[in-house]
C-alpha cells in the first residue's frame, strides 16, 4: 500500500464499517486484543447511529509503533462490510486508502473504479464454514494476517473469546479466523498490502482501557459503593460496569425510575455514610439540577459523572460534544460551591474519578466529572493504574451528643457525622437552617450560612489541578483545550512540529486555575480548541481572567475533532 513509504509509516489507521448488528464491535474488540497481545500500540474509537440494527457504523483502529491515542481522519485500510460503508465514509477515503471488501457481496454494478479496492472473500469463506455471519471473524483473520501476527496468537485469542460457547462454535470461529488469516498473508505476499509497524516492548505490561472502564474503576478506587442512575447514552456503560462488579465488590447498584430519583438517592446514600455517584448525560443532568442545588445546601456530597453528547434536548444520542460545560457550571438554583473535573486521558479518567470522591467528601460539595462520548467510548493501551500511592481518605466524624451538623467554622467545612455512628443526631435540611440543621428564619444566620457555604471555595483553592503545559515552558502560541481533546491536540501539535507552540490542557475546569491569566499573558497568540459551537470554556476564561482568546477552533457536528483538522486549523491560525 501507499502508506509504507509515506511518513505515516509506523502508524496505520484501519477502519471497519458496516451496519449495526453485523458484529463490528466483536471485530473491534477481538482485533484490538490480538494486536495488543502481539505487542502493538492500539487505539480504537467508534462512531455510530442511534439504532440497534442497520445504518452505518464504523470503528477506527490505529496500530502503531509508538503510542497513539487520538482520532485521525485518515483511513489507511478500510474494511467495508457492506456497500453502504463506502458511501458512509466517502469523505475520509483518499487515493491512499486501501479498501478491503468482499466486492462480490456488494451486488452487480458496484463501481470499483474510484478507489483502490482489494477483494477479500469474507462472505465466501464464512459461508463455506457454515454461516455468513462469520464473515466478520474472517475479516479479523485477514487483518492479523496482514500484520503477520503469529497464527497461534490469533487462534488462541479467538478460542478464548468464544470459550463460553459450544465447541462447534469455537471451532468454526477459529476456522473463520484462519481462513481470513490466509487471505491476509496472500495479500502481503502478492505485494498488494504491506505494513511496517514495530511491536513496542512496553505494551506488554500495559492494558487496554476505555474511558468508561476508567471512570468505573476510578470510582471503585475512590471508595464508591453506591450508584443509582437512569440509562442514558453515553453514560450507561459506567452503570453497567459497576453492576458487573457489584457482587464481588459489595456495591449497591440501582437503576432508578428517573434521574431525579437517581441523584436524590445518591445524596441520601452519602448522608448515610456511603460514597454515592450518578452517571448521566446532558438531558438527565438537566433533570438533576434541583438535586445539585440540594447537595449544595445540605452540604451532603455527591459525585456526578456527566458524559456529554450533542444537544439541545435529545440531540444526537450516540455522538459527541463538549456542549454542557456551562450547564455543569451553573446548574442549580441559588449559590454554592462545586468542583468540575474534565479528564483528558483514559488514565486521568481513572485518577480523577478516584479523587472526585475524596474531594466531595472533604469539601462536602457536588463534584462533577465531565467526560463525553468520545472519551468514554474510546480505548487504548495505558500503563495499568496503580493504587499504591492512592490514599484512602475518610472524612466521616463520630458524633457526640451535642453534635451540630452545620457548625460555623473558619473554612466553612463542618465535621460531617452520619446517622448511627455516635451519640449525636444528624439533621440536614434543604431550607435555610441553623447550626443544628433546623429550619430558621433568622436572617442574620442566613447570611452566615451563605458565607460559610461559599467560604469552601477558598478552602479548596489549594487543590485545583494545574493545567498541563506541553511541550515548551516558553511559547509564542498557546493552544488551550480541556477534557477529551488532550491527545488530539497534542498529536496535532506534534504533527505540525512548531517549536514555538504549546498546548495548555485543563483537566479541572472549575474552579479555574489561578495561573490561567499568567499562562495566557505569556503567549503572543492564543487559540482554543473546543467541541461546541459557542466556545464555552473560552467564556469561562474570559470571565475569570478578562482575557479574550485570539482564535477558536470549534466543532459541533457530533464527531470528535480529528488530529488532521486541528493541525490544519492551527496551521492556518498560527503563522
Amino acid at each position, binding site marked *: 500500500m501507499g502508506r509504507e513509504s509515506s511518513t505515516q509509516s509506523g502508524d496505520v489507521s484501519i477502519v471497519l464499517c458496516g451496519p449495526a448488528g453485523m458484529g463490528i464491535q466483536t471485530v473491534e474488540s477481538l482485533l484490538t*486484543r490480538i494486536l495488543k497481545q502481539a505487542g502493538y500500540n492500539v487505539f480504537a474509537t467508534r462512531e455510530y447511529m442511534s439504532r440497534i440494527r442497520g445504518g452505518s457504523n464504523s470503528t477506527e483502529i490505529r496500530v502503531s509503533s509508538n503510542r497513539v491515542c487520538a482520532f485521525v481522519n485518515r483511513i489507511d485500510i478500510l474494511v467495508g462490510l457492506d456497500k453502504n460503508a463506502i458511501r458512509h465514509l466517502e469523505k475520509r477515503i483518499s487515493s491512499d486508502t486501501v479498501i478491503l471488501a468482499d466486492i462480490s457481496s456488494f451486488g452487480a454494478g458496484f463501481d470499483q473504479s474510484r478507489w483502490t479496492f482489494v477483494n477479500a472473500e469474507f462472505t465466501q469463506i464464512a459461508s463455506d464454514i457454515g454461516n455468513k455471519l462469520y464473515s466478520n471473524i474472517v475479516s479479523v483473520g485477514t487483518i492479523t494476517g496482514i500484520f503477520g501476527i503469529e497464527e497461534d496468537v490469533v487462534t488462541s485469542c479467538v478460542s478464548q473469546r468464544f470459550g463460553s460457547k459450544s465447541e462447534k462454535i469455537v471451532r468454526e470461529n477459529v476456522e473463520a479466523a484462519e481462513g481470513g488469516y490466509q487471505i491476509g498473508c496472500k495479500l502481503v505476499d502478492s505485494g498488494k498490502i504491506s505494513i511496517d509497524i514495530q511491536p513496542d516492548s512496553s505494551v506488554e505490561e*500495559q*492494558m*487496554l*482501557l476505555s474511558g468508561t*472502564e476508567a471512570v468505573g*474503576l476510578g470510582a*471503585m*478506587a475512590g*471508595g464508591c*459503593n*453506591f450508584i*443509582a442512575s437512569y440509562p442514558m447514552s453515553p453514560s450507561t456503560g459506567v452503570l453497567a460496569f459497576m453492576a458487573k462488579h*457489584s*457482587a*464481588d*465488590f*459489595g*456495591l*449497591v447498584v*440501582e437503576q*432508578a*425510575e428517573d434521574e*431525579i*430519583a*437517581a441523584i*436524590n*438517592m*445518591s*445524596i*441520601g*446514600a452519602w*448522608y*448515610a*455514610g*456511603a460514597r*454515592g455517584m450518578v452517571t448521566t448525560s446532558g438531558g438527565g443532568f438537566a433533570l438533576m439540577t*434541583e*438535586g445539585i442545588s*440540594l447537595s449544595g445546601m*445540605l452540604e451532603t456530597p455527591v459525585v456526578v459523572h456527566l458524559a456529554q453528547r450533542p444537544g439541545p434536548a435529545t440531540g444526537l444520542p450516540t455522538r459527541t460534544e463538549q456542549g454542557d460545560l456551562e450547564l455543569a457550571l451553573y446548574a442549580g438554583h441559588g449559590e454554592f460551591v462545586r468542583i468540575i473535573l474534565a479528564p483528558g486521558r483514559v488514565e486521568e479518567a481513572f485518577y480523577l474519578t478516584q479523587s472526585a470522591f475524596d474531594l466531595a467528601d472533604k469539601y462536602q460539595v457536588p463534584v462533577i466529572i465531565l467526560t463525553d462520548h468520545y472519551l468514554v467510548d474510546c480505548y487504548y493501551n495505558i500503563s495499568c*493504574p496503580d*493504587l499504591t500511592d*492512592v490514599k*484512602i481518605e475518610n472524612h*466521616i466524624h463520630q458524633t457526640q451528643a451535642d453534635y451540630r451538623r452545620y457548625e460555623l467554622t473558619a473554612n466553612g467545612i463542618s465535621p460531617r457525622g*452520619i*446517622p*448511627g455512628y*455516635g*451519640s*449525636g*443526631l*444528624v*439533621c*440536614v*435540611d*434543604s431550607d435555610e437552617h441553623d447550626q443544628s*440543621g433546623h*429550619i430558621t428564619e433568622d436572617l442574620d444566620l442566613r447570611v452566615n450560612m451563605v458565607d460559610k457555604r461559599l467560604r469552601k471555595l477558598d478552602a479548596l483553592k489549594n487543590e485545583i489541578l494545574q493545567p498541563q503545559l506541553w511541550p515548551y515552558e516558553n511559547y509564542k502560541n498557546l493552544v488551550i483545550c480541556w477534557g477529551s481533546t488532550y491527545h488530539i491536540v497534542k498529536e496535532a501539535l506534534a504533527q505540525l512540529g512548531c517549536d514555538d507552540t504549546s498546548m495548555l490542557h485543563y483537566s479541572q475546569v472549575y474552579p479555574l486555575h489561578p495561573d490561567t491569566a499568567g499562562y495566557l499573558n505569556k503567549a503572543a497568540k492564543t487559540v482554543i480548541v473546543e467541541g461546541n459551537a459557542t466556545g464555552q470554556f473560552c467564556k469561562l476564561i474570559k470571565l475569570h481572567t478578562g482575557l479574550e482568546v485570539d482564535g477558536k477552533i470549534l466543532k459541533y457536528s457530533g464527531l470528535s475533532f480529528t488530529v488532521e483538522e486541528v493541525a490544519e486549523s492551527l496551521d492556518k491560525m498560527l503563522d
Partner: protein
Amino acid sequence: MDSQNFDMGDIDIAWCPGCGDFAILKILKQALAALEIAPQELVVVSGIGQAAKIPQYLKCNYFNGLHGRALPPATAIKAANPALTVIAESGDGDMYGEGGNHFIHTIRRNPDLTNIVHNNMVYGLTKGQASPTSQRDFKTPVQVHGVCLEPFNPLAAAIALDASFVARAFAGDAEQTVEIFNKAITHKGYSLVDVLQPCVSYNKINTYQWFKANTYYLDETYEPTDRTKAFEKACQTDKLALGVFYMSPEKATFEENLVAYRKDKSPLWQRQPNKEKIQNLIESIKNM
C-alpha cells in the same frame, strides 16, 4: 420507652393551632417509644410542606430534602445502612403529586421503610391549592371553579402495585393510629400509612367532623391478605375505611435483594475500597 424521649423541648412549631399535624407528631412519638426505637437509630426523611416539617419537631436524625423527593433518599439511606429505622413522611402533595413517580417505583422496590402520608387533601404550606387527593368540586384560589380531576386514590394505587403493607388512619384517633403505626413500622418491607389529617386553615370541607362522619374501621373479620377485596374496599369512597387494608404475600425487601450484603453485612460507611481486589480486577481486565 417514654415518648418524651422524642421531645425537642421548648421549640417554636410553625403549624397552625389545631392542625392535625400536631396529633400525628404525638402519635408518631408514642409509636416510636412503644417500639423502643432510639432516636440515634432512626432517620426520618421528608420533603417540603407542612407535614414535611415533622422531623424538625422530633428528636431524631433527619433528612429534610426536596419537595416530592422523600422516598429516593429514604430508600438509599436504608440501602446504605439497613440497621437504621427509616420513616419517609410527608404530605399528600409531596408524595402523590410532585413525588408520584417515586411513590410507584418505591413500592415496586419494596425497601423496608414506613411511608407516612399526611393526607389533608390540600396543599397547606403554599396556601391552599388542590392536592392530588382533593375531592371533586373543592374550590381554591387556583381551582376557582372547583377540582375536576379524579381524586388520587393512594390505597387503590398501592394495592394495584402490590405494595407490601397498605393502611389508612385518621389523625383524630390517636389510639388506633398508634396501633397502625406500630404495625407499619414493624412490618418488613414497604408500608404505606395514609393518614387523614384535617387542615384547619385551608380545608374547610374535610374537617375533623367530616372525617369522623365519613370514616369507619375495618372490622375484626376483615382479612388484609385478599388483594381483590382490599382493592374493592379501597375503591369505596362514599365512606372511608380505616385500618390495614392489605398485606401482600411476603416478598424480599430491596435491601435483602442487594448483592452488596451477600457476603458482608456491614453498612456501607464501614467499608473501605480493597486496593488489592481492585488491582486484581485491573490485572484481569489487562489480560482480557
